C-alpha cells in the first residue's frame, strides 16, 4: 500500500469519527442552549403568571389565547411540590399533528385553592433550528472533509515528492558504477537530511566496494616485489658452487613455489582487473583467427606432445574485446587444450561465425563439469597448474557479452564460445 493511500485512509477514518462526535456534541450543546433559553422564558412567564394572579386574584384562560399555552387545574390539597420541567407532545388544535413542547409545572394557590399550573412553550421552532443547523453543519463539515481530503492529497503528493524522487534514484543507483548517488536538496529539512545521509552512505558503499575491488589488485602488486626478491636470491644462490644435492632440491622447490605463486598472483590480478573493468579499448578481433595463430605459435609444444591439430574455420568469429584479454583468452584456451590432452591426442578448432569450438581429446573429467569454471578448480593434481585458466576464460566471456560452455562427448572435451542472446543481431 502506498504511503499516501494509507495516510488518506487513516485521515478519512479519523475525520469521520471526529466529525461524528463533533456533530453529536454540537447537537447536544445546541439542544442544551435552546432548553436553557426556553426554560428561562418559562420561568419569566411563571413570574408573569404569578404577578397576574397577585393583581387579579383569579385566572382567566382568555388572557392567553395562544393554544396549549397554559393549563391551570385545581388539585387537591397536597404538599407543596417543586417546579419541574418536562417534554411533552401535544395534539395540535387544527390538525392531528403532535407538537413537541417544553412544559413547566408548578403548584400555586389561586384564591386559596392549590392549582397545578403548566406553562408550555412550543419547541417546534427550536427543533427546526436544530435541524437546519445540523444539516448546514453536516454539509459544511462534509465539504470541509472532502476539501481537506483533496487538499491533503495534493499537499502530500507535493510534500512527499522529494521522497519519491529519492526513492527512484536509489533504485537506479548502481554500486559498481563510478557515478555517485546524486540526490536533490529539497527545502524540507527532514528530506534534505535523509538525502544527505543517503548520499553519504552511497558514497561510503561505493568507496568500500571500490577499495574491496582494489584490494585484490593492490595486494597482488605488493606481492610481486617480494616474489621478485625471492626469485633473485634463489638465482644468486644457485650460482654457488658448494651446494649439496639436497640443498639444490630445496632451492628448486622454493624456486618452483615462488614461480607458481607469481603465476597465481598474475592470474588473480588479471581476474581482478577484468572484474574492475580496467580494460576499455574494445576492438574487433577474430577469435578464430587468433586461435589459429596461437596454435601455430604453439606448434613446438604440439609436436612435442605429438598432438594433431585440425582447424576448420568456415567463418571468422568476430567479437569486441580488448586486445590483451583476447590474447589471454586464446592463450588459456589453447593451453588448456594442450595440458589436458593425452599424448598423440587431437585438437580441433571450429568456427561457423556464430559459435566457436575448441575441442581436445583427453581422459574423462573427474570433477563436476558445472564447477569447472570456478577458481582454483583443478582437474588432476598437477602442481604446475594454478587453476585459474578457465576462471579467466569465463570472466572474460561474461564481461564482454560472450558465453562459454563446456561439453564432453566420446572422449572429446569441447569449449564452445558464443554470443549472449541479447548480443546477437
Amino acid at each position, binding site marked *: 500500500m502506498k504511503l499516501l493511500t494509507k495516510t488518506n485512509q487513516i485521515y478519512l477514518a479519523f475525520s469521520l469519527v471526529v466529525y461524528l462526535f463533533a456533530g453529536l456534541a454540537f447537537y447536544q450543546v445546541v439542544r442544551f442552549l435552546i432548553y436553557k433559553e426556553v426554560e428561562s422564558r418559562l420561568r419569566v412567564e411563571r413570574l408573569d403568571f404569578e404577578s397576574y394572579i397577585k393583581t387579579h386574584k383569579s385566572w382567566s384562560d382568555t388572557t392567553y389565547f395562544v393554544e396549549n399555552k397554559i393549563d391551570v387545574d385545581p388539585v387537591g390539597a397536597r404538599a407543596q411540590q417543586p417546579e419541574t420541567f418536562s417534554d411533552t407532545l401535544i395534539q395540535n388544535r387544527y390538525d392531528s399533528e403532535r407538537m413537541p413542547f417544553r412544559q413547566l409545572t408548578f403548584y400555586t394557590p389561586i384564591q386559596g385553592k392549590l392549582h397545578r399550573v403548566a406553562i408550555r412553550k412550543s419547541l417546534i421552532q427550536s427543533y427546526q433550528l436544530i435541524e437546519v443547523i445540523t444539516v448546514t453543519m453536516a454539509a459544511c463539515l462534509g465539504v470541509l472533509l472532502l476539501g481537506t481530503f483533496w487538499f491533503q492529497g495534493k499537499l502530500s503528493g507535493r510534500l512527499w515528492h522529494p521522497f519519491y524522487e529519492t526513492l527512484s534514484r536509489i533504485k537506479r543507483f548502481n554500486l559498481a558504477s563510478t557515478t555517485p548517488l546524486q540526490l536533490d536538496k529539497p527545502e524540507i529539512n527532514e528530506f534534505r537530511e535523509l538525502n544527505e545521509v543517503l548520499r553519504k552512505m552511497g558514497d561510503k558503499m561505493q568507496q568500500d566496494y571500490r577499495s574491496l575491488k582494489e584490494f585484490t589488485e593492490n595486494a597482488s*602488486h605488493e606481492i610481486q616485489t617480494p616474489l621478485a626478491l625471492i626469485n633473485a636470491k634463489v638465482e644468486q644462490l*644457485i650460482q654457488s658452487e658448494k651446494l649439496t644435492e639436497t640443498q639444490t632440491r630445496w632451492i628448486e622447490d622454493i624456486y*618452483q613455489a*615462488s614461480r607458481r605463486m607469481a603465476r597465481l598472483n598474475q592470474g588473480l590480478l588479471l581476474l581482478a582487473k577484468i572484474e574492475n573493468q580496467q580494460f576499455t579499448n574494445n576492438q574487433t578481433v577474430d577469435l578464430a583467427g587468433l586461435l589459429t595463430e596461437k596454435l601455430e605459435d604453439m606448434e613446438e609444444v604440439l609436436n612435442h606432445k605429438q598432438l594433431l591439430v585440425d582447424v576448420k574455420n568456415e567463418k571468422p568469429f568476430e567479437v569486441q574485446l580488448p586486445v590483451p584479454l583476447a590474447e589471454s583468452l586464446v592463450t588459456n584456451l589453447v593451453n588448456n587444450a594442450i595440458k589436458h590432452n593425452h599424448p598423440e591426442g587431437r585438437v580441433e578448432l571450429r568456427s561457423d561465425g556464430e559459435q566457436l569450438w575448441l575441442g581436445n581429446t583427453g581422459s574423462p573429467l573427474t570433477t563436476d563439469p558445472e564447477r569447472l569454471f570456478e577458481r582454483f578448480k583443478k582437474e588432476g593434481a598437477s602442481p604446475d597448474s594454478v587453476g585459474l585458466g578457465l576462471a579467466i576464460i569465463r570472466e572474460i566471456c561474461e564481461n564482454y557479452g560472450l558465453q562459454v560452455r563446456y561439453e564432453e562427448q566420446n572422449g572429446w572435451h569441447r569449449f564452445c564460445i558464443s554470443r549472449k542472446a541479447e548480443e546477437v543481431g
Partner: protein
Amino acid sequence: MKVLVVEDEKGLAESITDYMSKEGYLCETASTFREADERIYLYDYDCVIVDLTLPDGNGFQLIETLKKLLTTTGVIIISARNALEDKIRGLEIGSDDYLTKPFHLSELNARVKSLIRRRNFGGHTEIRFREIVVNPSARKVYVNGQLTVLSRKEYDLLLYFLSNIDVVLTKVSIAEHLWGDNIDSADSLDMVYSHIKNLRRKLLEKGGSDYLRSVYGIGYKFGES
C-alpha cells in the same frame, strides 16, 4: 659500462647489483626518487634500470628527466604492474624495455646486454665467445668460421647463454625466455631439454667445445669451467 639501479626494495637492488657486477658492469643503486634524480644529474650512465613505483616519486618522471639530459642512456623499466598502458607509456617517453616483476636476473642481464649492444653499435656487432661468433643483425652463428644453422629457438637459446656466461640459468628462466610467461611449464621444461640437446649437438658438430653443462638438475650453465 655504468649501470644505475633504481629500486626501493633494497634486497632486490642488491641482487641485481651483485649479478650485474659479476658481468663486469659498474653498478650503482638509488632507492629513492630523490637519490636517483640526483645521480642522473651528476653522472652519466649507459643504462638505467628503473622501478616505476618509488616511495617518493614516479619512475616515469625519472625517465623523462633522464631523456632530457642524455638521450643515449638505455632505460629498462622493472615494474610490479603488468599493464599494457604502462608499457606503452614507457616506450613513448623513451624507455627501451619493460620487465614485469618477478623476473629472472638472467633475463634482465640479457636485456641489458642486448640494449647496450644496440645502443653502442647500432646492432652491428658480433658476439664472440671462443670459437663461437654470433652476428645478431643477420641472426647468423659461426663456429670455427663455419656457418651453423640453428632454429629460431636454438638461436635465442644460444644468445641467452652468451649473455649469461658462467651463470647457472634455471630451466624455468630459459623456458620463459624462449616462450614467454604463458607457457605451461611441465611441457616447456621437456622442450628446453630437447632444444639444449640439439644446440649442443649442432655446436659440437662444427668442432666446438662442449660448453653446456647441466647444473644440479635445476638448470644449465654455459662457460669454460
